[in-house]
């Protein structure tokens, strides 16, 4: 396995995943399968899968309290502790976790090694991964939330707000006659740009190229596929109409909403007039949902359970109990003294038991052997 194989493999898989609904809907007209059965199955797998994984993790105990301390501990009253990076109570942990989850704080520390021959090592500014990671995740989140307008009636106010925020570049006017562009929502483009960067950096940074698995390329390509089909549906229709006079891409929003509402209200319907491209989009999303619980995408759940981040560094204040703790064999003081008694007495070290030969009483310390 090398990166070429890994990338090829992922591309092939994603291509197959595009072809399946294409053939299925366009050639065989299996709209019910791809519009209803597959999405339901995917959602079921997604929910059950996540539960299964999280419960699986939670079933394993946390025997030791091992936070990675990334700041000053709480010790003497006059030394200022770092309450966030080295939390000593639940409040600190919550703040630390919030920073991790919302702002990727640890990733923000990233630097990149510059190694100059002749023994000069420096660590350079490198926040691009952090920037791209935030851009990707937040635009993904915005896109997901925007989709709620398909699944809700009436549409909650916050969805409108997000949409307005997202569309602040709105170009309501037609640039020239006969061609009007729908409102531009930047999240989709940010998402694609960030994904492209995340893919390219995997390639051009030799270290990530070496460690990347198909399981790293695949989700990137899959999400690129989802975003691309989405963008095509939204914007390309207008172009097509303008250039070719026919529109193969745009999808009547009303009909899509009918389908979506059918799904959430458990009265599935398959409206007419929805093009194949929509089914491809929907199928890829279904695959992402079904794939999610069994992949590295579960980092979404794992980050909350990570014992190096979600525990406070109060070990010396509050005892942590290991549920599977068991007694171990130790070398007791008694055994130790039995072996070295003569030498200890000779060196003037106190002993518990006076050996027969040296009847001379030392301090008459009572015999109180340790039992482990």
């Amino acid at each position, binding site marked *: *396995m*090398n990166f*070429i194989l890994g990338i090829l493999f992922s591309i092939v898989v994603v291509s197959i995943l595009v072809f399946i609904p294409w053939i299925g809907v366009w050639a065989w007209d299996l709209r019910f399968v791809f519009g209803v059965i597959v999405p339901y199955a995917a959602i079921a797998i997604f929910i059950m899968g996540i539960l299964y994984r999280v419960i*699986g993790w*939670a079933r*394993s*105990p946390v*025997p*030791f309290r*091992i936070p*990675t*301390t*990334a700041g000053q*501990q*709480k010790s*003497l009253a*006059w*030394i200022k502790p*770092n309450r966030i990076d080295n939390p*000593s109570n639940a409040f600190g942990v919550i703040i630390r976790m919030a920073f991790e989850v919302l702002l990727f704080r*640890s990733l923000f520390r*990233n*630097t990149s*090694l510059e*190694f100059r021959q002749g*023994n*000069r*090592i420096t*660590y350079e500014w490198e926040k691009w*991964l952090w920037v791209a*990671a935030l851009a990707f995740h937040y635009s993904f989140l915005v896109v997901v939330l925007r989709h709620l307008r398909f699944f809700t009636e009436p549409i909650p106010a916050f969805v409108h707000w997000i949409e307005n925020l997202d569309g602040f570049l709105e170009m309501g006017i037609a640039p020239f006659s006969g061609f009007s562009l729908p409102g531009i929502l930047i999240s989709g483009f940010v998402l694609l740009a960030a994904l492209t960067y995340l893919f390219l950096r995997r390639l051009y940074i030799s*270290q*990530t190229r070496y*460690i990347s*698995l*198909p399981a*790293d390329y695949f989700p990137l390509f899959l999400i690129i596929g989802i975003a691309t089909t989405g963008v095509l549906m939204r914007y390309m229709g207008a172009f097509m109409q303008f250039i070719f006079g026919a529109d193969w891409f745009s999808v009547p929003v009303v009909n899509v909403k009918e389908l979506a509402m059918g799904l959430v209200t458990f009265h599935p319907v398959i409206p007419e007039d929805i093009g194949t491209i929509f089914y491809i989009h929907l199928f890829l999303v279904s695959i992402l949902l079904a794939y999610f619980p*069994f992949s*590295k995408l579960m980092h979404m759940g794992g*980050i909350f*359970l*990570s*014992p*190096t981040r979600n525990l406070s560094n*109060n*070990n*010396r*204040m509050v*005892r942590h109990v290991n549920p599977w703790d068991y007694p*171990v064999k*130790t070398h007791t*003081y008694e055994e130790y*003294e039995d072996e*070295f008694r003569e*030498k200890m007495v*000779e060196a003037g*070290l*106190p002993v518990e038991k006076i050996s027969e030969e040296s009847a001379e009483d030392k301090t008459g310390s009572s015999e109180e052997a*340790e039992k*482990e």
Partner: protein
Amino acid sequence: MADVPKPKELVKIRHSPPFLTGWMNTPTEIKQGIACYAGKPKNLEYVGLPNPREWSPFDADWKLPPNWKKIILDGLRERLEKFRSLKIFMDICVRCGACADKCHFFIGGGDPKNMPVLRAELLRSVYRKEYTTAGKIMGAFAGARELTEDVLKEWWSYFFQCTECRRCSVFCPYGIDTAEITIIGRELLNLIGLNTDWISAPVANCYRTGNHLGIQPHAYKDMIDFFLDDIEDITGIRLEPSFNRKGAEILFITPSGDVFADPGTYTCMGYLMLFHYLESMGLDITWSTYASEGGNFGYFTSHEMAKRLNAKMYAEAKRLGVRWILGGECGHMWRVVNQYMDTFNGPADFLEEPVSPITGTKFENAKSTKMVHIIEFTADLIKNNKLKLDPSRNDNLKITFHDSCNPARGMGLLDEPRYVIQNTCKYFYEMPENTIREQTFCCGSGAGLNAGEDMELRMRGGMPRANAVKYVHEKYDVNMLATICAIDRAVLPDLMKYWVPEVDVTGVHELVANALILEGEKKRTTDLRGEPLPGMEDMDEEEGAEQTEGAEA
């Protein structure tokens, strides 16, 4: 000891991994100068570790038990059920590579399997094969591979090229701690007798004699007596420490390295002088020969072994009837004390919440373990003006401070040592911020890698640290590297000799003792090392506080 290439040779490092060959297809070579020697059967037998035998990692046949694979896989399954950390770390890495160039072994060696993420993948790949459906079906395409003897050897090689320093964990967005994976990886390897001599010998020694070096009780006392002679030469005062004394208020435990090898010995003299100074102010403290080791090489073997060795601390405290425990300057000792001891061997309900007998300060942060770090203790003394200090005695030193990994990333003991140094020395300079505090670079020899035969690995792993020292040496003329870890004191001198020969190494309590003005002392002309104090260079050569030569620790 294998020949170590010259620094000029060693810096020729490439950090780009092979282009077309994937890591699974890159075979592992067990190299002289990088690998440690194998554990000796007698040491395994002494503590009852499995599969004791003569073997060598450089041979083709590692003399594994016939059912080794089952033992390892059962062991892995058991640990997945016991450690949530392991399970999560196996599942959620996204291979973003943020940790890749953060490991000192990768920086100093360029071996891509020393990137933390790949070190973890060595184990993860087998985990996928055995415990995930995708791995079972898709094999290498799912990043999975069969556990073979070669894979096992690869594990051994790379889990003993990790110092469990946790630097990678600071940068990982999920806190994935490759140290934790190494710890569990080593635990698995130990199930079939794959270990190193430099770890299993100290473990057996510690079990038997109470300390890693195997110093027997009378010899331990003799060593301290030597220090008392030296201190008397320097200060004119004869100290009278006590050992194994019942009814003392405080039990003092420090790593045995400080009793045995320079420059730790001077730190040890520092403790003795500090305790003497405080005696008249009400300090009632005893040393122990049974619990004469703070360090815990068991922790580099398995959690169980760590617990077995650590048990002595509380057991001895209980036997002697002390109120609380004071711990010396040590790295992994404090990782274990801070993060494991109470869980391993507590609750310490036979002890009392620690209170400084001198200042009355309650050490609230240690109210459950009842063990206080001597740097916390001394910082509190200084803050309360309890120590008469003459920092000018350290004026010939330009100091920088090396945060040891364990107190930094397993505890957060960052400002206390700086406070103590700044109050005992005039010249203190920080290394660049990417190389200190929670981002500190390992000495390159921790977690049991401080053997002689892997010197090349150590010099490579220590390169980033040395590079930062070199920077402050060139910029501020720094000539002394202070640290609060016994392994550091044992290994950094070698590292400095190799990379920055102008810089020497010291413990913080050596600096304290140099500055400390003892009641009734004679006019000091030398520091604890027998070297003239600043301004005393022309004085008559004192008859010399030559130190006892210890074996390399």
